[in-house]
């Protein structure tokens, strides 16, 4: 099969020394096996995620994503735009759809972009990496590359919010999307049934500003994974990953729980199942080490 190429929007958290840098490491490993070439959008900027609204109005925020789309159209015009971060994907896809929906918004946005000599058409598809995996490769296609099935690991597929709402993955329901469970199964692991908090919110950016309220949400997400018999949680979103993993100490201190639940990305499961090592799978980036995955990766 020929190399598949995409116009890649890596996003702030993917950068070296940033909170989702291990996600990027595992995405690179996964893409290597699948023969995917990710062509970075040159000089991409932050999308302002979902918390930029206090300082940024509607049009300035839209202009941020429009600048990325404009740069992508220049550099990689024939390729779909792909993001790995849920917020990057959501902001970019929303901008694309709103620009195409409203002539006046398109006109105003292009007036703003013209200040830097840019122009946007918003014609490229904007997709999340999991859409690429499911739609361009398919579960069977993804299964073909499995060298080390993740046998005997029970995993809670925590889908969270922004890859699920408001757009979601085609063919999936908002209340009980199955794609993450199917990916887990495809890699030879065992998805848990009845994961109550599969699409519950972790607090997002409010984990920083409202730690107590958010940690109460996070506690339920972890507890529900334990209740379902899970040994680790998998997620497609860097904010979900960080929020659910790194506050477990603080939650344990407050709620007298004994949580020690690894939280990994789908791309890490895939890298390990595809035969990549601990480092290439970004497993050394876990605050709570995913011992069972490390064991398989170093076999």
């Amino acid at each position: 099969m020929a190399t598949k190429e995409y116009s890649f929007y890596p996003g702030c958290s993917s950068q070296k020394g940033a909170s989702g840098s291990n996600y990027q490491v595992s995405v690179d490993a996964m893409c290597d096996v699948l023969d995917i070439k990710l062509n970075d959008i040159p000089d991409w900027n932050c999308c302002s995620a979902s918390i930029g609204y206090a300082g940024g109005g509607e049009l300035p925020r839209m202009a941020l994503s429009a600048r990325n789309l404009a740069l992508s159209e220049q550099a990689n015009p024939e390729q779909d735009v792909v993001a790995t971060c849920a917020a990057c994907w959501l902001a970019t896809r929303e901008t694309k759809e709103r620009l195409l929906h409203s002539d006046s918004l398109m006109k105003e946005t292009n007036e703003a972009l013209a200040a830097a000599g840019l122009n946007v058409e918003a014609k490229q598809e904007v997709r999340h990496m999991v859409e690429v995996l499911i739609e361009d490769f398919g579960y069977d296609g993804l299964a073909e590359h499995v060298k080390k099935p993740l046998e005997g690991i029970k995993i809670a597929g925590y889908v969270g919010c922004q890859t699920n709402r408001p757009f979601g993955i085609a063919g999936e329901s908002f209340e009980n999307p199955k794609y993450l469970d199917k990916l887990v199964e495809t890699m030879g692991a065992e998805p848990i049934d009845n994961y109550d908090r599969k699409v519950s919110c972790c607090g997002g950016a409010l984990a920083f500003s409202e730690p107590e309220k958010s940690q109460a949400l996070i506690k339920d997400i972890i507890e529900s994974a334990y209740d379902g018999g899970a040994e680790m949680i998998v997620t497609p979103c860097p904010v979900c990953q960080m929020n659910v993993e790194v506050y477990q100490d603080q939650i344990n201190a407050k709620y007298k729980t004994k949580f020690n639940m690894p939280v990994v990305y789908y791309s890490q499961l895939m890298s390990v199942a595809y035969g990549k090592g601990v480092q290439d799978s970004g497993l050394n980036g876990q605050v709570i080490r995913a011992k069972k995955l490390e064991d398989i990766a170093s076999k």
Partner: protein
Amino acid sequence: MSNLNQSMVEKYRNDFLNEVRANVEEGDWVNMCMQCGVCAGSCPLGPYWEHPPQEIFMMIRAGKREEVLTSTSMWMCTSCYNCIARCPRELPITHIMHGLAHYADRLGLAPKNQPTRKFANKFWDNLTKKGRVNELKLGLALYFMNGFIEGIKVAMANQKLGLNMIKTKRMSPMEIFGGHGVKDTSGLHAILKKAREIELAKAEEFKVQE
């Protein structure tokens, strides 16, 4: 009262609904709410809203300008989009809440010490400075947003977390010296300035429909 707030009060008198339609993102949708309350029941922070979204919508229609714009309510939105997914009238509730929060902040009416108001502003300032988020500086700004003494306390409480992030190479102390950013910062700043100008001019031109 801020000058901008004063001029908006004079311009719209008691017509808060039209003020929202002109100045708030997706404000045109406010009239579509049928008061079912599914949004309130779907919100992860539902119990913490002073006035849940459907109440905010009715208050806008009832002209309760001050009560709406000074409320902490909109700042409870986590951007989970559950309300949008479930609203039977398909109102873009998340966007309207973001829009109301932004407008209240711009008028100087948003509660000064609301933590998400502070953090969201710091986030915007952080990302627009160099075009990409500097997570280290953002974290430090967050710790110290309630003053130096409070900041030291928060930093101490989160010391282990910070060390964990550095140890796993998911945070870099080197970010304090500049860090990641776009190359064309002047272009980016020019775009943002122009976008803001267009947005304000458009709100200015808004004609109240009788």
